[in-house]
C-alpha cells in the first residue's frame, strides 16, 4: 500500500480546485473580519458621539473636565517637540528638493507657494497624525489593554460605570483637540523650515517668502487641513481604544494591540487622507 500515488490529471485538477476554493474561503474570511473590525471601530465612535451629545443636552450626564484636561496633556504635550522637529526637517527637504526644478523654470520664489500648500493641506495634519499615532495611540491601546487584563474594565461595568463614557470619551476628545492644535503648530513650523532654508541657502528674502505664502494660501487651505486633523484624531483614538478594549491573552495581547494600533492607524490615516484629497479635489476645495 503506497500513499504516494503518481499525480494524475484529475488529482492535480482536484488540488487546484481545492487550493482555489481555499483561497476564496480565506479571502471571504478576511473580508468578514475586516468588515467586523470597521463596524466595531465605527460603533465605538458612534457611541462616543452619543455620550458627548447626551452630556451637552442633559446636565446630569457628567463627562469630567479634569479627565479631559489630563488626557490632553498626556496625548499632546509630549508630541509637540517631535512634530516641530519633523516639520522643520520636512520644510528643509521640500525647499531643497524643489529648488533646482523651479530654478529651471525661472520661478524659484514659487517654492514658498508649494511648501505652504503642501504643509497646510497635506503634510501638517498627516505627519502630526503619524507622530501622534505612535505616541498617543500606542500608549492608549497599551493602557486600556492593561486595564482589560487586570479586570478594571469589568470592575467599571460592575459599578455601573460605562467604560466608553469613562475611558473612551475623554481620550477621543483629547486626541481630536490636540490633533487640531498640533496641525496648526505643524503648519507654522513647516513653513518656517522652508523659509529658513530659502533665506539661508536659496537667497530668497524672508519677507518676500512670507508674501508669496500669503498670496498662495487661502483660508480654505488652512481649514481643510484642520478638518483632516480632527478626523485623523478621531481615527487614532478610536482604533487605539478599540484595540485596547479587545485585548485578550495577557501581556502578549497588550503588546500585539500596541503594534497593531500603530500599523492600522497609519494605514487608516493615509487611506482617509486619500479619500479626503479626492473629495476636496472634486469639490475644488
Amino acid at each position, binding site marked *: 500500500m503506497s500513499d504516494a500515488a503518481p499525480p494524475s490529471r484529475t488529482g492535480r485538477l482536484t488540488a487546484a480546485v481545492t487550493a482555489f476554493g481555499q483561497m476564496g474561503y480565506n479571502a471571504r474570511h478576511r473580508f468578514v473580519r475586516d468588515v467586523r473590525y470597521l463596524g466595531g471601530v465605527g460603533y465605538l465612535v458612534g457611541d462616543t458621539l452619543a455620550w458627548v451629545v447626551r452630556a451637552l443636552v442633559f446636565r446630569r450626564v*457628567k463627562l469630567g473636565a479634569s479627565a479631559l484636561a489630563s488626557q490632553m496633556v498626556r496625548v499632546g504635550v509630549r508630541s509637540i517637540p517631535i512634530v516641530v522637529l519633523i516639520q522643520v526637517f520636512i520644510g528643509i527637504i521640500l525647499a531643497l528638493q524643489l529648488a533646482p526644478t523651479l530654478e529651471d523654470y525661472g520661478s524659484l520664489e514659487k517654492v514658498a507657494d508649494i511648501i505652504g500648500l503642501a504643509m497646510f493641506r497635506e503634510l501638517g495634519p498627516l505627519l502630526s497624525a503619524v507622530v501622534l499615532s505612535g505616541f498617543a495611540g500606542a500608549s492608549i491601546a497599551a493602557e486600556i489593554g*492593561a*486595564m482589560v487584563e*487586570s*479586570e*478594571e474594565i*469589568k*470592575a*467599571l*461595568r*460592575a*459599578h*455601573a*460605570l460605562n467604560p466608553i463614557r469613562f475611558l473612551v470619551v475623554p481620550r477621543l476628545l483629547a486626541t481630536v483637540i490636540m490633533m487640531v492644535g498640533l496641525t496648526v503648530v505643524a503648519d507654522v513650523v513647516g513653513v518656517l523650515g522652508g523659509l529658513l532654508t530659502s533665506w539661508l541657502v536659496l537667497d530668497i528674502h524672508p519677507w518676500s517668502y512670507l508674501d508669496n505664502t500669503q498670496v498662495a494660501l487661502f483660508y480654505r487651505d488652512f481649514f481643510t487641513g484642520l478638518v483632516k486633523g480632527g478626523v485623523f484624531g478621531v481615527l487614532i483614538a478610536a482604533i487605539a481604544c478599540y484595540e485596547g478594549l479587545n485585548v485578550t491573552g495577557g501581556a502578549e495581547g497588550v503588546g500585539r494591540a500596541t503594534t497593531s494600533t500603530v500599523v492600522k492607524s497609519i494605514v487608516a490615516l493615509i487611506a482617509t487622507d486619500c479619500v479626503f484629497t479626492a473629495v476636496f479635489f472634486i469639490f475644488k476645495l
Partner: protein
Amino acid sequence: MSGMRVVPEESQKFVISVRQLAKLFADQQGRPVRVLDDITFDVYPGETLVVMGGSGCGKSTLLNCLIGELRPEEGGIFYQTRVMPQPINILDAREEQLNEVRKRFGILFQSGALFNSMTVAENIALPLKEHSYVDPSIIDIVVTLKLQQVHMLPHRDKMPAQLSGGQKKRAGLARATALDPEILFYDEPSAGLDPVTSAAIDELIIDLSKKLSVTSVVVTHEMDSAFRIADRMVMLDRGRVLRIGPRGEFERIRDTAPERLADEDERLIHQFLNGKTEGPLTDAAGMSEYEKWIVTG
C-alpha cells in the same frame, strides 16, 4: 426550552433567583460546549451562599453571568432588591435597568481590580462621586469609614501598585461596599493569601454580612474558609448543580465515611470537601485520560 417555566415562584422572598441557566462557549473547533447547564437556585435575603466546585466547573462563568458581564444563552436571572421589590430579569433588562441593579451590588474581584491610575481613597470615592450627589466632604468621611472597616486607613493615599495582594483585596472590599450594597459577590476572596490574612478576610466577610445585613455570594475552593462563612452551599460539577443545601448538610457529608454515604454524588462531594486524591472525582477524570492514552498510543 421555550415551553419551560423560567420564572421564580411567586410567593418566595429571594434576592437573586437563577432559573435553568445555560451558558455555551465555543471550543477550539468552534463547537458549542455547555459550560453551565440547567443551573437553578435561589439566594435569600441576608444569607451567605458559598459556591464550590473543581477547577473549570464553571464558577467564574456563573459569577460573570450573575453580574451581567456574560450573557447566558438560556434561562433567567432575577433580582429583587429593596429599592426594586418587583423581580426583574437582568437578561431582558435594558442597560439602564441593569445599571440600577448593579448599583445595588458590590463585587470583590479575584485580584481586587483596583483602578491602577488612582489612589486607594480615590478608588473608593469613585462610585460615590459617580452615583450619589453628596458633598465632597461627606464622600471623604464615607471613604475614611469604609477604609477603617477593612483596616486600610494607613494606606489611603497609596497607589494600588504599592499594595500587597491581601491589601489590594481589602481595598477592593472597601470599594465594593462603598455604596452600601445589598448584595456582595466575592470571587475567590482567599486565593493566594496566607492562612492568617485569609482568615482575616473571612472575618471581614462575616462582619460585613452582619453589620450591613448584606446578602453574599462567595465563590471559593478554600474549604476551611467556605465552612467558616457559609450559611448555605452549592456544589457545582461540570456545569451542573450537584447539591445545594445548608452548611450542616455538607458538614455531615464531609465527616461521614464514603462507604456509608447514600450515593455517588455524596461520595464525590465527600472527596472534594476532604481534598482526597482517591474517589469518584479523580476516578472519572483518570479513566478518560487513561483511555485516551490507550487509544492514541
